[in-house]
């Protein structure tokens, strides 16, 4: 296996007792090199988010293998997958995935509760906040932030542990055009710093800004 992320013949089927089987991914293959900025495009229900959840160690495939930074996640137990989410892969969501009742600082502390390395925590938080341009909002409750500011907090939380891989699920979906540009600038800066970024989007203009576009249709991956 070569790339930092490698999917080999990955199939994901969702099934419940009451509903028929849904094939979200069908024998999908994908290799992502270290330092790449990749966008995944496709219509609703095409399997984009499933792909991100598998790479993000939030789910396991029904068949096939997923390898992240040299480790085959398919064979990992829940504890090992949690460790990967904490120290290797970070995820930024469209709805930000923040704890609404807490301050910006509190939200950035959360990854450290699950990390064995809490050394220099405050410095790391400070530097993540400065990088995302929200250092002055440190003690502000998340409920009092704008959409763009919330997404910056989500990105700051994603980089606070210095994870090499950043996954973003429609990160600009709820933002206006100006804020979209600012968030994309942040992603470019992170990519320049060596982060591998995979961004799921249905916004073609955003996708064109990345170094490679991958299209998904009916659970199958097609290179663009």
């Amino acid at each position: 296996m070569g790339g930092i992320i490698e999917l080999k013949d990955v199939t994901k089927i969702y099934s419940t007792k009451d509903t028929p089987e849904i094939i979200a991914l069908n024998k999908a293959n994908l290799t992502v090199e270290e330092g790449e900025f990749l966008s995944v495009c496709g219509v609703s229900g095409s399997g984009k988010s499933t792909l991100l959840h598998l790479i993000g160690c939030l789910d396991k495939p029904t068949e096939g293998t997923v390898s992240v930074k040299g480790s085959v996640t398919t064979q990992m137990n829940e504890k090992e997958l949690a460790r990967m989410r904490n120290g290797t892969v970070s995820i930024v969501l469209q709805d930000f995935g923040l704890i609404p009742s807490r301050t910006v600082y509190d939200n950035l502390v959360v990854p450290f509760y699950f990390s064995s390395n809490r050394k220099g925590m405050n410095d790391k938080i400070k530097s993540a906040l400065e990088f995302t341009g929200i250092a002055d909002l440190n003690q502000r409750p998340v409920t009092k932030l704008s959409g763009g500011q919330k997404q910056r907090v989500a990105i700051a939380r994603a980089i606070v542990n210095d994870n090499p891989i950043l996954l973003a699920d429609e990160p600009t979906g709820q933002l206006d055009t100006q804020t979209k540009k600012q968030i994309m600038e942040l992603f470019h800066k992170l990519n320049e710093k060596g982060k591998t970024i995979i961004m799921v989007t249905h916004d073609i203009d955003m996708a064109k800004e990345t170094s490679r576009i991958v299209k998904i249709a009916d659970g199958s991956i097609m290179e663009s």
Partner: protein
Amino acid sequence: MIKLTLKSIWEQKGINSSSVVLLSLVFSVQLLLCAWLEGILNIYNEDIEKANSLRLIFTLLILVSVTSIITLINYVMNKRRNEFRTLRLCGATPTYILACKLLHLLVIVIVSLLGGSILFLLLSKILNQHYKFNGLFPVYILFVVITAAELTVYHFMHRKDEKWAG
């Protein structure tokens, strides 16, 4: 980590105020209902047929209120859905999240039970009624056990619907 969870539970405004007050009210009404029915059952103790039909009504009422409490608790838990998902994204294991949920439930139920009992005592004083607790409490404990069991079943039944939210 438990400290974080406990702290966050107490800091959640939505849970400490409206939800717990609402649950307390339901629990106190429940206690009053139990006490009232217990009183009636004692009166009709010698008329077996009447006592049996009353027991049936009593069981049905308990089932209805159990369902209402499950709905309420489910509503309270859903309010914290985002927080559980965030913990998972940041590296929490499913076991940790389950422990958080149980702890959260426990706090809600204990606080509501306490609140409900105090309200019941106050209400019964206002209504100038005196109830025997000997017969009431086993029934009430049974009610709490049924609620807990149904909640567990409810949780696992709906678990499959949640894709990954924890």
